[in-house]
C-alpha cells in the first residue's frame, strides 16, 4: 500500500474511536510535544492577537490615551463600510494592482525559469545567480534606487528611451511615478526585479518533471513548444497555483514600495492609496487602533474570500500527478 492509498483508505469510511492503547497514548503525547511549540506560538502570536484585534474593532481606542478607550459597538465597522470612501478606494487600488501585477509576475517568473532550465543556455548557473541576486537587496534600498532610476527628469530609464527618439525626459515626458495610469505598471516593473524566489520555485518544479515524459513525447514527434504546452506547464501547475495564492495574498498586503516611493499621500490622484497604506495611517500614524483593527479584519475577510475562490478553481486547471 502506497502512502497515498493509506490516506485514501483512512478517509474512506467513518472513523471509530476505540480506547487508545498505552502505546498509542505515548505516541500521541510525543506528537503533541513535538507540535506544542507551534501550537503555543500560534495561540500567543496569532490566535489571541486576532481575538484582541476583533475586540479592539468594537472600541474607540487610541494608543496615546488608552484610559479613554470605550466600547462603541459596530460604529467602526459602519464607518468603514458605509461612510469612508478611502476604504473602497484602497480596496480598488489594491485589487486593480493585483489584477495587473499578478499575471505579469507569474508569467515572467515561469518564463524566466523555463529559460534558466534550458540545456541550451550557456552559463546557466551564472544567469540563475544574477536573476536571484536582486531578491537579496533589501526592499527599502531597492525602492530608493528605483526612485532615482525612474526619476522623470534625471533617471536613466527615460534617458535610455530618448536614445530611441521617444521624448521621455521632462515635465511632458514619461512620469513613471506621477501618472496615475502608469503607477500599477511602474510598481509591477519594480516588483519583477525581485521575483527571484518565484523563479526558483518554478525552476524546482520544472526540474521535478520526470525526463521520461519528455523523452517519450520526443520519440512520438512532439516539438519543444508542444512539450512545453502539454507536459511542462501542466506538470508545474501546482507550483504556479502555489505562487498564485501566495502572490495574491502578498499583493493584498502591498505596502513597502508605495510607502517608500510616495509616502502616505496617495499621490498621484490616490493611485498609491493602497489599502495597507490607509490601514497604516489609521492604526499607526493616527493611532486609531480601534478603526485600524476594523480595517485589518476587512482585509482579512477580503483575502480569505479571494483565497477560497482561488482554491475552488484549482480542480479545473491544477494537475496533481499523485491523484492519478
Amino acid at each position: 500500500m502506497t502512502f497515498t492509498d493509506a490516506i485514501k483508505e483512512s478517509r474512506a469510511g467513518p472513523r471509530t474511536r476505540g480506547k487508545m492503547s498505552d502505546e498509542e497514548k505515548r505516541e500521541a503525547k510525543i506528537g503533541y510535544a513535538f507540535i506544542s511549540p507551534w501550537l503555543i506560538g500560534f495561540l500567543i502570536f496569532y490566535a489571541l492577537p486576532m481575538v484582541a484585534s476583533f475586540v479592539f474593532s468594537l472600541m474607540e481606542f487610541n494608543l496615546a490615551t488608552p484610559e479613554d478607550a470605550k466600547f462603541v459597538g459596530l460604529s467602526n465597522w459602519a464607518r468603514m463600510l458605509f461612510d469612508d470612501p478611502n476604504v473602497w478606494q484602497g480596496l480598488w487600488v489594491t485589487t486593480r494592482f493585483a489584477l495587473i501585477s499578478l499575471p505579469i509576475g507569474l508569467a515572467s517568473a515561469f518564463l524566466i525559469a523555463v529559460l534558466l532550465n534550458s540545456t541550451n543556455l550557456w552559463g546557466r548557473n551564472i544567469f540563475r545567480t544574477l536573476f536571484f541576486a536582486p531578491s537579496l537587496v533589501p526592499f527599502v534600498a531597492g525602492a530608493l534606487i528605483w526612485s532615482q532610476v525612474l526619476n522623470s527628469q534625471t533617471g536613466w530609464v527615460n534617458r535610455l528611451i530618448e536614445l530611441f527618439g521617444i521624448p521621455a525626459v521632462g515635465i511632458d515626458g514619461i512620469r513613471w511615478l506621477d501618472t496615475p495610469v502608469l503607477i500599477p505598471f511602474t510598481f509591477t516593473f519594480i516588483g519583477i526585479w525581485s521575483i527571484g524566489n518565484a523563479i526558483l520555485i518554478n525552476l524546482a518544479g520544472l526540474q521535478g518533471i520526470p525526463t521520461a515524459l519528455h523523452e517519450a513525447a520526443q520519440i512520438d514527434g512532439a516539438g519543444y513548444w508542444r512539450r512545453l504546452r502539454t507536459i511542462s506547464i501542466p506538470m508545474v501547475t501546482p507550483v504556479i497555483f502555489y505562487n498564485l495564492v501566495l502572490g495574491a495574498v502578498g499583493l493584498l498586503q502591498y505596502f513597502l514600495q508605495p510607502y517608500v516611493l510616495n509616502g502616505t499621500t496617495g499621490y498621484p490622484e490616490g493611485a498609491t492609496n493602497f489599502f495597507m497604506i490607509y490601514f497604516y495611517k489609521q492604526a499607526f500614524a493616527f493611532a486609531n487602533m480601534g478603526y485600524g483593527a476594523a480595517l485589518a479584519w476587512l482585509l482579512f475577510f477580503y483575502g480569505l474570500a479571494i483565497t477560497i475562490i482561488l482554491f475552488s478553481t484549482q480542480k479545473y486547471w491544477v494537475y496533481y500527478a499523485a491523484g492519478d
Partner: protein
Amino acid sequence: MKVSKFKAILLLLFVMSLIAAACGGDDDADDAAAPSDDGGTATTDAAPSDDGGTATTAAASGEAVEIRWFVGLGAGTDAPVIPQQQAIVDEFNSTKPLGENISLKLDVAPDADQAATLMQTQIVGGNAPDIAGPVGVKGAAQFFGGWLDINPYLGDYDLSDFDPALVDFWNQGGVQLGLPFAVFPQVLWYNQELFDEAGLAYPPAEFGAPYVDADGNEKPWDLDTLRELAIELTVDSSGLTPNDDGFDPNARVQWGFGNMFNDFRGNATLFGAGNFVDADNETCIFPDDWKTAANWYHDAMWVDHFHPDATFGDSEILGSGNWFNSGNIGMITIHTWYAGWGTADLAADFDVAAIPSNAGGVITAKLHADTIGIPKATSHPAEAVEVLKWMMSEEIAPRLAAIYGGLPARESAQAAYVDDPANDFGFDWAVAVDALSYPDNPNHEAWWPNYLESTDAMNEWWTELTNDPNADVDAGIDALCGLLQPVFDRDSA
C-alpha cells in the same frame, strides 16, 4: 445545532468585548495625574499643593522613585548625543538635587522612526515613561490628550527668563505640555559662490534692512526681490536663466530658491502667520496671505522655474532632498537645526540672511521650539515635574539646548551660546537671534482639529497641487476646506 453554535460564538465575542470595554477605563474614574479642584492636597499621591510643590508624593514618603526619561520623539537618538544626555542624567544621580529618593534614568528609543509607537505601546502596557522629549509640536500631537498639564504644578516657578509667547506656545487646548528649552529660528541661507558667479550682491543680514544690489541701488528686501534674485540664480545646462530665450527648464542644473523640509503651512508662513482653523477652533478658513503663497510657490516651480519641484527635488542633482547641501541652489529658508549636519558636504562658502517681508512689509521668521513633556499616564507626576523643573533650570536647560543644537529658550543664556566657539557653524548667529523677534503667531505647527489627520489631508492636497504643472491653484484653494472640514468635524464629534 448549528444555530446554537453560532449563538455561542456571538455570545463569547460579546462577553469578551464587554470585558475589554470594562477594562478599558472609566471616564469618571479619578485620574492619578489630575490636580484636585483646589490645587491643594488630594487623595492621590500625585497631586500638587498650592505652592506648586509636591504635597503627598511617593518620594516624600521615603519610597525610592526612578524617573524614566524617554528620548526619541524628536532629536536625541543620534549616537553622538546619547553620551551627552547620559552625562546630564549622571549629574542628576550624583548630585541628587531633589533628594536621595529620586533618581533619573535615560531611555533612548533604538529607532527614532518607531519611537512614537514604542511609547504608545509602553503607555498601553502600563509602563509609561515619566518624562518624554525633546519633542516638537508634531511629535507631541501624536499624543494629544495624553500629556500632563504641568500648570497646576508650576506654582511660583520663575518664568521671567522665557519669552511669554514661547511659554504660551506650549499651552495647547488649555494644557501646558511643558516649557520651551530650545528654539530654532528660521533664517535665509545663501550660497555665496553662486551669488558671486551671478554677480549678485548678498541679501541683507539685518532684519528690515533693504537689499542693496551690485550697483548700489536699494530695493525693499521682500518676496518680490527674492523672486528676482532667485530667477537670476536659476541656470540650465547651457548657462541660460529663465529670463533668457532658449532656457530649458528640463535641463536645469541650478535653482534660485527653495523652502526646504516644509509642509504647506510651513511654506505659506513665509507670507505671514496663519492657520486653517478659525477662532472658533472648528471652522476651516484659508488665510488670504496663504492664497497668495499657494500661487507664488506653484508659479515658482512651473512658471518661473526657480523653486525645485518634487521630481528634481528628490533627485541626486539636488542632494536627494537636501538641496542646499548639493551646492546647486542659491537660497533656502530653514531653521537653525540645519546647522552643521545640513551643510556637511557643501564645499562653497555660505552665510545666513534676514527673512524677506511679504507685500505688506510684514516679516515672519517661523519658529520651532522644543519642549520636554510628561505623559499623563506616568505613575509619578509630581516627581516628574520636579525633575522637569531641574532640567529647565538656568544651569541645565542651556546645556540641553546645546546638545540638540538649539538656541536656549532662556533669554539670559542666548548670548553665551552664540559666543561659544563650539557653536560656530560658519554663519552669523546674530541674524538667528534677531529672527526670534519675528516669530509666527499662530505658529505654523499650531494645534488644529484632528491634528494628524488634518495634516495628512493637507499634505495630500499640496502634493497633488505642486506636482501638477497645469493645476488650477485657485480651484485647489477653493477645494481645500471641503476636504478639511469633515476631518475637523470628526474631531468635534
